[in-house]
């Protein structure tokens, strides 16, 4: 048992199956100083995939700011950790499960949730909240309906059963996601152990422990599968999709947290993508040691499994530990009590290799660094300047639209005449804008009893920070965290850099709207293949945008996930890429839960103010506000074009700081940001949420009326201020420090009315006059009516 088993095999065929290139094979031989056997080639195949080693994106990820006073653990570990003060630490991360969900939506989405939860509790944190960002093709297509239904059911199945509340998310629809939906799941946890549990193994000859579920043939080669584009034949790849068991995961959470608290566990790593291969190599490489793994000791779900199958299986709910010698029995007992497996399967080696034994033979012996950390990096050439495809869109200007009349406009595409009320109702009926109640009502968002702001009630979720283990004394817990996921993909598709800046800005605005202070982000970069110049350019521009914005908001990136090759081969052979979708998952801190805001109006008589670039300034010269790239342009005029509004990071930061301060100082009864659909839609959402009407007076202006009502951009937020505080609020604003010699942009635009009537006038002209019930019908029924389900 000294040399590695080396059976011959068809190299070209094997490389193709593992998604490796001929030059990868040469590189593998150089690293090993010999030819790899078939098992080893399989291990390289998964570990050198984009999913595991970021071979296409690593150089771009290096652009991100990753440090800051609150950052305890940045990118590289299972999840990021931030300091919340008072001894509390928050662990969070986002991860995609796009490809599995495309071909098996229920299990694909369910195991996406399971995987991200394991990343959290592997660090020693109890998961306290889940969010998700989803993208589908239009619901007019039955195939997309069944994907939506399957994904939502899968998330509900796993999250509800495991007992972690799903507190927020975002969903949007675009034809580019037909055939390649996106399922990104974010999890947050509160550290329960004194020390953060890391993945680097240490202690020569220390035992390596396998815990959790058994290993079967499910999810074989999932990481490689996730790193290639989807085709019709992908459906045959269903064995690459894992099957999850949230019941086992619930036990795994409890048992892991119990043993971590004992201090016996030296290192821990969950088995996600690339299963045993990945966990062994990362633990060895991160700890600068080696690991010997005996597959004959691994609990198997079925008989006759080969070494290749053991090593590449992505069976769920499994983890690998290094524990202190002598503690094995103690640790194993805890898992067995929860009905889980726990066995010693190997030991830590001084020699920095991953050595795998199967049937008394060494079937793999690879330097750990070759599998993790020191993996190949692809160099891509960057296009100089703006690609033609994008430049063409930027030439579009809003004067190309038909001129609006006082009360209506003709659609640029269908020539149909729309009254402003028709436009508003059609926007509210757009599934991207509409209520997501059909979705979030299937998620348990209350379990654990800490959800303060539930889905649909505020711009971000707010969860109270309360340790689950408490003594028998009544205690006040008055702090919380806010969390949100955001990505304006239409904007990103038309200007990846501006769109990505806007994604971070909007996330921070949403966090600020509930009164929380943004502290850090995790991101999920969903892109097409980076192997085309345009694909790589979009990714580069987007990462640059995220970096700029994260610097501006002082919200470092603590990690995340990259999902590439999100494109579908059409029947004519062409590739349809998704909108580039860099999802930002942001967390914020709430110091006092009695000073938070929700989005619906609070009380009739409150005055309504708009913060941000004022309506009066809305002339076509100010490129911070625009009809380009808006939901209005797409929904009414059938156009997805133009350059998205220019983000003004300085103004945005200034306004958000002011907003948070005024919430803390008790001036604000509600706050809601203006995004998709512009001012009119944002006002309508506040009314629908509260069943209170509005009386709004739009200032007279030379600007197009559709621009006043439906333009996007401008860092805008709607706030309502109690009537009796209106006067001091005015002087509060006037006395607030100026930005670049300009006073804070805030203007009163109307008040909350008690009659449930939604009225907007400009001078003597009534622009909109609708009952809140009419608005609600459009907003609430948009998704159910497309799924043809009951209310």
């Amino acid at each position: 048992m000294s040399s590695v088993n080396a059976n011959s095999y068809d190299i070209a065929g094997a490389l193709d199956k593992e998604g490796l290139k001929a030059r990868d094979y040469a590189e593998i031989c150089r690293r090993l100083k010999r030819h790899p056997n078939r098992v080893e080639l399989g291990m390289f195949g998964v570990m050198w995939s984009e999913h595991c080693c970021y071979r296409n994106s690593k150089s771009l990820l290096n652009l991100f700011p990753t440090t800051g006073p609150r950052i305890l653990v940045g990118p590289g570990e299972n999840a990021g950790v931030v300091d919340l003060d008072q001894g509390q630490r928050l662990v969070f991360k986002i991860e995609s499960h796009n490809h599995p969900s495309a071909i098996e939506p229920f299990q694909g989405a369910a195991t996406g949730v399971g995987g991200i939860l394991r990343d959290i509790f592997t660090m020693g944190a109890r998961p306290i909240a889940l969010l998700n960002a989803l993208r589908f093709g239009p619901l007019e297509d039955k195939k997309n309906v069944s994907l939506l239904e399957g994904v939502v059911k899968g998330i509900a199945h796993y999250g509800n059963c495991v007992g972690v509340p799903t507190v927020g998310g975002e969903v949007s629809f675009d034809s580019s996601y037909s055939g390649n939906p996106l399922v990104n799941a974010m999890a947050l946890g509160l550290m329960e152990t004194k020390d953060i549990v890391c993945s680097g193994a240490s202690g020569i000859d220390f035992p390596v422990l396998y815990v959790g579920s058994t290993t079967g043939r499910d999810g074989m080669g999932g990481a490689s599968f996730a790193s290639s584009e989807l085709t019709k034949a992908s459906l045959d790849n269903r064995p690459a999709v894992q099957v999850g068991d949230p019941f086992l995961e619930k036990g795994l959470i409890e048992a892991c947290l119990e043993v971590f608290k004992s201090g016996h566990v030296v290192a821990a790593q969950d088995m996600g993508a690339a299963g045993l291969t990945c966990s062994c190599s990362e633990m060895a490489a991160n700890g600068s040691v080696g690991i010997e793994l005996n597959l004959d000791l691994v609990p198997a779900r079925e008989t006759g499994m080969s070494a290749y199958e053991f090593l590449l299986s992505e069976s769920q709910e499994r983890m690998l530990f290094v524990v202190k010698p002598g503690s094995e029995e103690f640790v194993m007992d805890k898992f067995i009590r929860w009905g889980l497996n726990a066995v010693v399967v190997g030991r830590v080696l001084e020699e920095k290799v991953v050595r795998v034994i199967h049937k008394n033979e060494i079937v793999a012996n690879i330097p750990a660094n070759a599998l993790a950390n020191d993996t190949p990096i692809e160099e891509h050439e960057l296009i100089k300047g703006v690609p033609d495809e994008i430049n063409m869109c930027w030439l579009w200007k809003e004067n190309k639209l038909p001129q609006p009349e006082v009360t209506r406009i003709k659609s640029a595409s269908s020539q149909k005449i729309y009254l402003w009320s028709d436009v508003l109702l059609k926007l509210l009926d757009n599934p991207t804008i509409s209520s997501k109640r059909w979705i979030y009502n299937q998620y348990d968002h209350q379990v654990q009893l800490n959800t303060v702001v539930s889905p649909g009630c505020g711009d971000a979720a707010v969860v109270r920070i309360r340790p689950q283990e408490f003594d028998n004394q009544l205690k006040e817990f008055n702090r919380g965290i806010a969390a949100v996921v955001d990505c304006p993909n239409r904007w990103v598709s038309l200007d990846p850099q501006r769109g990505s800046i806007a994604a971070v800005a909007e996330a921070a605005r949403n966090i600020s709207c509930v009164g929380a202070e943004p502290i850090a982000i995790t991101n999920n970069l969903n892109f097409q293949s980076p192997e085309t110049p345009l694909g790589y350019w979009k990714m580069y521009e987007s990462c640059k945008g995220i970096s700029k914005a994260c610097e501006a908001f002082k919200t470092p990136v603590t990690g995340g996930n990259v999902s590439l090759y999100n494109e579908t081969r059409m029947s004519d052979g062409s590739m349809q890429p998704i909108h580039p979708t860099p999802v930002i998952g942001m967390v914020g801190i709430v110091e006092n839960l009695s000073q938070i805001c929700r989005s619906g109006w609070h009380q009739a008589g409150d005055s309504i103010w708009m913060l941000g670039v004022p309506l009066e300034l809305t002339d076509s010269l100010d490129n911070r506000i625009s009809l380009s790239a808006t939901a209005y342009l797409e929904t009414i005029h059938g156009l997805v074009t133009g350059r998205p509004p220019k983000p003004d990071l300085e103004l945005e930061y200034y306004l958000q700081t002011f907003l948070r301060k005024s919430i803390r100082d008790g001036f604000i009864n509600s706050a809601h940001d203006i995004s998709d659909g512009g001012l009119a839609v944002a006002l309508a959402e506040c009314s629908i949420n509260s069943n209170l009407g509005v009386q709004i007076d739009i200032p007279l202006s030379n600007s197009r009326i559709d621009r006043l009502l439906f333009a996007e951009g401008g860092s805008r937020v709607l706030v309502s201020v109690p009537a009796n505080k209106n006067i001091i609020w005015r002087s509060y604003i006037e006395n607030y420090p100026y930005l670049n010699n300009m006073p804070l942009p805030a203007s009163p635009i109307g008040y909350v009315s008690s009659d449930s009537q939604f009225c907007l006038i400009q001078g003597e002209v009534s622009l909109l006059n609708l009952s809140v019930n009419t608005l609600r019908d459009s907003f609430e029924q948009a998704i159910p009516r497309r799924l043809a389900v009951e209310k």
Partner: protein
Amino acid sequence: MSIGVVVFPGSNCDRDIAWAVNGCLGMKTRYLWHETRDLSGLEAIVIPGGFSYGDYLRCGAIARFAPVLESLVDFVAEGRKVLGICNGFQVLTELGILPGALTRNKNLNFICDEVDLEVSTSRKDWFPKSFSGDNIKLPIAHGEGRYQCSKETLDNLLDNDLIALRYLKNPNGSLSNIAGITNCSGNVFGLMPHPERACDGQLGGLDGQEILKSLIS
């Protein structure tokens, strides 16, 4: 004396019960691991929500064989109070301590929402301060909460005033809008809504407090 909270593998509202009963209402609690048979020193027992043993086969179908529940049968016979919430209600029907069964929601989806309910019993065991016809608001979170039973059983429930709670707007297709029922002696109460989720002012309503407070008579 304290309140026992049963913990099955897969229970996920056990800590929530402890927070509501102990953290919010100041009564002592003790966790009961599913393998224990020792119920001494307990004033009442709560079977919490969740997915006991994964709820494979059928909700509550495996849990009914747990050692802790063998002792529970005697506990009930002694007239002491048992409250089954959500999965706990399903377990009580599987055990036969409460009649009927809970099946998949009519729309086949899991539903998490807040619902309006009517106290429909005039018995005081679990609603000492409410009157029949009073309205309360409680959260629900279940996939299988559609109460079903035979005509005979329903008549028995009606004749003996055993229907404790009814939905004002039926969310799941339950027979006769039933959200919760008691046994004949009134010491066992099973309901799909979650009273423990309505005990903490920071999170919302407080309509669950009356039910949990009545665990101690």
